[in-house]
């Protein structure tokens, strides 16, 4: 019993071929869009690779780029096949290639689906990469004199301004590291000397944050230093003050940004996958309908198109049989060779 049989007369076959030709060219466009999205994601990851310790995984954008290119190639080929399908002479040269081509198409569809899934699942690895990268970035904030790390201050400042965030998990992360370079500390001042001596590692820690943490929505000028000292500022309570600095941590902000980006790209890829699956199914029907044309001299006759010649369990059994036969065939040949060699050696 064939799977999902559909009857095709000449007109229906022609319509199917034309429709498939159009859909294939739309798929080429969709492939270009996926390629573009992969490229965009790659560029966005590269832009912020400084705060991700240059160790971020480019697996998702690379696979999107690859799948986009493959989609363009396969679909333009399929479009050519559909165009030639209307002409029996031209179709004859494509006939032997169609079955393996359809198998490749099915594999490609599976790959596309897996790539779409990856877009949604890679959030976890990005989170840990961001946590490490931001921690290091903040550690090197003060090293504006060290070659190779002198741009970290500018990068972190512009990141905090652009993404409206402060620190790794919150602004208190800045209290735990020395973000003011020793070069700009006056070591003759008593206050500086006290602070450095009171710290085990000899670091100059302050309860203050860089200017890029300031929130422009605050009604009062930004308070950056002595944040935990209520008496240092008039009418200030650090436990209820919410508008002075950005409250979100940069890890959460960047993660949310990249998650949204990858979710959108994943959704678009799933839509393209559905489209590609439809195109593959249509191509299979066209293939079987043209194969089923009983009399090649009479193109007007009716034929049947189906997805699988037998039902799914029977097809699976037949596939396993053919694989076993292939294996057995090799075994028999090998045994024959051994038997032949043994007497020859013996």
């Amino acid at each position, binding site marked *: 019993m064939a799977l999902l049989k559909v009857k095709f007369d000449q007109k229906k076959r022609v319509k199917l071929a034309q429709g498939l030709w159009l859909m294939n060219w739309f798929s080429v466009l969709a492939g270009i869009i996926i390629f573009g999205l992969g490229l965009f994601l790659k560029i966005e990851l590269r832009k912020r690779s400084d705060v991700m310790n240059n160790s971020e995984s480019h697996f998702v954008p690379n696979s999107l780029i690859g799948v986009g290119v493959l989609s363009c190639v396969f679909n333009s080929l399929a479009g050519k096949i559909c165009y030639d399908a209307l002409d029996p002479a031209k179709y004859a040269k494509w006939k032997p290639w169609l079955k393996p081509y359809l198998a490749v198409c099915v594999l490609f569809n599976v790959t596309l689906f897996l790539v779409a899934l990856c877009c949604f699942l890679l959030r976890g690895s990005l989170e840990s990469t961001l946590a490490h990268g931001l921690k290091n970035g903040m550690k090197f904030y003060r090293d504006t004199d060290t070659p190779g790390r002198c741009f970290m201050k500018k990068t972190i400042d*512009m990141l905090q301004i652009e993404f409206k965030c402060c620190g790794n998990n919150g602004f208190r992360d800045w209290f735990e590291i020395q973000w003011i*370079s020793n070069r700009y500390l006056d070591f003759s001042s008593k206050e500086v000397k006290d602070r450095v001596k009171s710290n085990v590692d000899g670091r100059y820690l302050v309860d203050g944050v*860089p200017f890029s943490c300031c929130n422009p929505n605050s009604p009062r000028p930004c308070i950056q230093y002595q944040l935990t000292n209520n008496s240092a500022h008039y009418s200030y309570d650090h436990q209820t003050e919410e508008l002075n600095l950005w409250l979100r941590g940069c890890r959460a902000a960047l993660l949310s940004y990249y998650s949204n980006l990858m979710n959108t790209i994943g959704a678009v890829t799933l839509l393209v996958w559905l489209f590609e699956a439809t195109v593959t199914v249509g191509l299979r029907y066209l293939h079987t309908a043209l194969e089923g044309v009983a009399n090649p001299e009479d193109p007007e006759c009716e034929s049947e198109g189906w997805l699988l010649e037998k039902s799914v369990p029977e097809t699976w059994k037949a596939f396993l049989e053919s694989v076993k036969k292939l294996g057995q065939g090799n075994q028999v040949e090998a045994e024959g060779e051994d038997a032949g060699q043994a007497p020859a050696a013996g």
Partner: protein
Amino acid sequence: MAPVLPLVLPLQPRIRLAQGLWLLSWLLVLVGGLTLLCSGHLLVQLWHLGTFLAPSCPFSALPQFALAASAVALGTGLVGSGASRASLDAEQYPPWRGVLGPLLVAGTAGGGGLLVLALGLALALPGTLDTGLEEGLGSALAHYKDTEVPGRCQAKRLLDELQLRHHCCGRHGYKDWFGIQWVSNRYLDPNDHDVVDRIQSNVEGLYLIDGVPFSCCNPHSPRPCLQSQLSDPHAHPLFDPRQPNLNLWSQGCHEVLLGHLQGLASTLGNMLAVTFLLQTLVLLGLRYLQTALEGLGGVIDGEGEAQGYLFPAGLKDMLKTAWLQGVGPHRPAPGEGPPEEEPPKEGLPEA
């Protein structure tokens, strides 16, 4: 009556003219679309920067007129492409015959007029930006501290975001902040001696400090931002005034915004000029095509040589004919039938 600027158009040149006109029309559509996008972009930019431009500044009229002019140019291009395509096909041309005349008049008068007006505005209006920005920025700076005054409470946030995004500080430099009170009285401690001294030493009772808001800070500076006591050389250790000052943004917002908006206006002006040129060419080509085909009586494939012209007669003759046509029906002469209609009917002179 001799036709103005006649051009003999046999069949092949007529076909060439129609094909060339079709290409030119699609080019006009493309350029018109781009100009539309450009004027839309300028409109959006002006909407964002609305607080920093005085309300009396007429600059916002430019993108509005440019939008209208480019929309008309787009329409002209579409009409031109349709008409030139139809003129190659005998079946499609007849419905265009009656419509083309009035469309040409509308395109020339309306579209041409709007484009010339928009071009004029693009040349004249950027000059008014200077005063508009002075007023607008001055008012924004003065109201920076009024975060509790309804209607002005957004000034601080908008000015901070402007300085952060456009990398500028103050109107012409950071010292502008020294001359105004940018700290709201609500956050000044009346028991603090320093505050009281400052306020009393000022004629108008303003609290002026030699400090700037955080949004003036330059992230490229190697040291954490110095915002306060900027005129005191001993307040900050190791501050070397001889080194280039990377601490704050050195440009004033007035210069930055002026350059930004004038750049956008000049781009828009260039695109309007190109659109104007293309539209003139398309309208001229359509006119010649129309008159040539009318000369053949609307028969597309006529092998005869037709003459295309801009106007059937000189300006004086046209005015006389128009006047006679207007006055004639009131004084019907005996034995005269209705006046022969000259193909095509030309009413208004070119605007």
